[in-house]
């Protein structure tokens, strides 16, 4: 199927990653639903998808507006809340931070209202690392791959923990390996994620050294790039040199530096040179569409929006948790479930879940997919676009000029990225954040899943055998992880494949992200690895 071809079958789909697996809601009681995947073994449903059904009628679902007064919140009706937000904004600027993983139609309608609203700016919120990665891939001109495409590739280069970011991509790799057992699987991941266990070649990668390792692999594979003196990268590159169709799978991990744009560009060039493509395993299904549509819809970058957070109105997203920020106050947040952003907001509003809205997504392989809503939103709960319209109307805007929805399949041509800044000296011991299959993004939604709440109530801390011995840690011990003046509880997992001096904590928790928060860096938001301290909790903590 060509990349611009649209899948027309409309079924409810999980919108939490580009795989867009079909998931249906099954009633499991009065006002209670659960997720169900297809009857046969043709589909898949990772833990994130399993959580979706239960969230439809979750007991903590935000169904009414509330106003914060100090530590207390009081009920307020939605029109009064909207009027208060409009009056608070007054003649000043307001920034609408809209979830960038909504259907394209929602983004277009919200943009039209923001355009008609003087002083209002729109920002499409996706993971900062994902945004930079996608800009780099777009600039490279590489094709996008996904799903079944992968089983047709004859070599795989995995950067970051792409198998955890999108577990379905593992099937294509394993299917290929089944028929061609010598297929090279090269992994570049200083956090030694899932892919490291299945790799034929693990590239020795320093903390924050993904770009250097990728350049060395690319050089050894025949590309004009900085070779360096990395023997494991040279061996890996030689293994990929003969590939006729190379798949590069990338998960842009949080707190791994500011070079994701350059990584995306170089990975795209390598994939193009080897007749293959790139699979960007982003958070959410529509990150690529947000990158492509953002400039056309007049959206501002998150780094620009971050200059003044006081008048933030977050709609359907959790920017505070995503960026790992603490101690901030914002004007308003409309979210389906409580999160770090609603905790920071003076006014909290209800809004529909992403899977209560049907529409167009640009999923894996940059293929346009129409989805149906799992269920309609609860009565009185607006969609994000409806909420932006109501806010604009409360501010006195009577009408907007409907923008013709731009085509998300139309590729953008951003500039070739400039050279990456020299990586900072690696901290020691270094805290890295790593993806896991259980959560999407900062866990603002999937964290409310019943399985997540019971089985994965706290982050997992991967520790090397050497560090575990030195720190006296045993598997499943509860520890406190301290960095950046913040602390988070975590459960230890001994990871034999991890190098000493590196600890990897699950990034699907806002409290994990607060250990290594994003900062504005050269016009983009980025987070760096940080120095970490680990101490054992008392036994009563469990």
């Amino acid at each position, binding site marked *: 199927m060509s990349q611009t071809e649209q899948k027309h079958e409309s079924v409810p789909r999980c919108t939490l990653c580009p795989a867009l697996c079909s998931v249906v809601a099954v009633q499991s009681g009065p006002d209670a639903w*659960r997720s169900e995947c297809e*009857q046969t073994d043709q589909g*898949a449903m990772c833990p994130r998808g*399993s959580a979706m059904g239960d969230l439809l009628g979750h007991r903590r679902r935000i169904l009414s507006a509330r106003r914060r007064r100090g530590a207390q919140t009081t009920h307020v009706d939605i029109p009064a809340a909207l009027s208060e937000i409009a009056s608070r904004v007054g003649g000043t600027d307001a920034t609408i931070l809209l979830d960038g993983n909504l259907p394209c139609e929602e983004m277009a309608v919200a943009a039209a209202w923001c355009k008609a609203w003087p002083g209002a700016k729109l920002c499409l919120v996706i993971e900062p690392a994902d945004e930079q990665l996608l800009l780099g891939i777009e600039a490279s001109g590489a094709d996008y791959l996904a799903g079944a495409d992968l089983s047709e590739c004859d070599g795989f280069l995995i950067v970051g923990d792409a198998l955890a970011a999108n577990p*379905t991509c593992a099937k294509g790799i*394993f299917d290929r390996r089944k028929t061609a057992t010598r297929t090279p699987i090269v992994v570049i991941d200083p956090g030694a994620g899932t892919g490291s266990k299945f790799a034929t070649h693990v590239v020795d990668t320093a903390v924050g050294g993904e770009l250097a390792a990728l350049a060395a692999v690319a050089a050894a594979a025949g590309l004009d790039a900085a070779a360096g003196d990395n023997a494991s990268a040279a061996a890996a590159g030689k293994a990929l040199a003969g590939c006729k169709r190379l798949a590069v799978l990338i998960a842009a991990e949080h707190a791994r530096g500011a070079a994701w744009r350059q990584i995306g560009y170089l990975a795209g060039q390598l994939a193009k040179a080897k007749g293959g493509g790139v699979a960007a395993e982003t958070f959410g299904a529509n990150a690529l569409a947000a990158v492509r549509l953002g400039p056309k819809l007049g959206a501002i970058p998150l780094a620009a929006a971050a200059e003044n957070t006081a008048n933030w109105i977050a709609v359907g997203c959790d920017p505070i948790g995503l960026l790992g920020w603490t101690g901030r106050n914002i004007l308003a947040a409309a979210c389906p479930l409580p999160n770090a952003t609603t905790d920071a907001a003076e006014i909290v509003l209800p809004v529909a879940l992403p899977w209560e809205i049907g529409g167009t997504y640009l999923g894996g392989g940059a293929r346009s997919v129409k989805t149906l809503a799992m269920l309609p939103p609860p009565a009185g709960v607006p969609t994000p676009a409806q909420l932006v319209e109501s806010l604009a109307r409360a501010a006195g805007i009577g009408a907007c000029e409907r923008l013709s929805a731009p085509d998300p399949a139309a590729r953008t041509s951003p500039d070739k990225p400039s050279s990456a800044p020299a990586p900072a000296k690696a901290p020691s011991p270094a805290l890295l954040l790593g993806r896991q*299959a259980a959560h999407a993004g900062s866990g603002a939604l999937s964290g409310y899943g019943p399985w997540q709440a*019971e*089985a994965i109530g706290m982050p997992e801390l991967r520790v090397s055998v050497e560090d575990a011995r030195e720190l006296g840690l045993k598997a499943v011990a509860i520890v406190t992880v301290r960095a950046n003046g913040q602390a988070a509880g975590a459960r230890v*997992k001994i990871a034999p494949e991890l190098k000493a001096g590196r600890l990897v904590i699950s990034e699907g928790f806002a409290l994990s992200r607060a250990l290594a928060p994003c900062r504005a860096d050269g016009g983009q938001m980025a987070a760096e690895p940080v120095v970490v301290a680990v101490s054992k909790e008392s036994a009563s903590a469990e």
Partner: protein
Amino acid sequence: MTTASSIAVAKRVVTNLDRCIECGSCAAACYVSHGNMPAVNFAQSGAALLPVICRQCKAAACVEACPVEAMVLDEAGVVRRRIFRCIGCGSCARACPFGVLPARTAGVPAGFRSTDRMSGHQIPKCDLCEDRTAGADGDVVPRCVAACPAGALMFVDEHRAAAEHLAILGGRTTGENPYKRR
């Protein structure tokens, strides 16, 4: 129903160790569809944390051990737990030679039980998703298998398992690093 039988279940859930990426999809799918009482257990084996799922033994030790006849072997060879008979004594869990039945609340992927429901006093037991698979055609699979994104879990008979060069393993996996088996 019978307490001991020579009946063998037609198909079992088997795990291909070369494909398991430890994502937990099987456990999550089982959890949300079985009243928050999952039957997918996990076994730590060196670097790996692998799912272990009831193999529906032909001569099931859990059936023999149950003091209240809550565990029975049905006509299809599936070992079932009769929910209203189970007193949660844990005899079956201790008897299981494969460590498949979770015996205690651990809070970690080593098996856990709901504590906020009636079922909190009962032992979770895989029923091969009988609500999906009973009477269905051959393509319908239990939820853990349907959910598995890596194709690591398969619902197969012994002949197909042999054809795929898959050994039907017990619940516990031995060896420091099962991924090295390749």
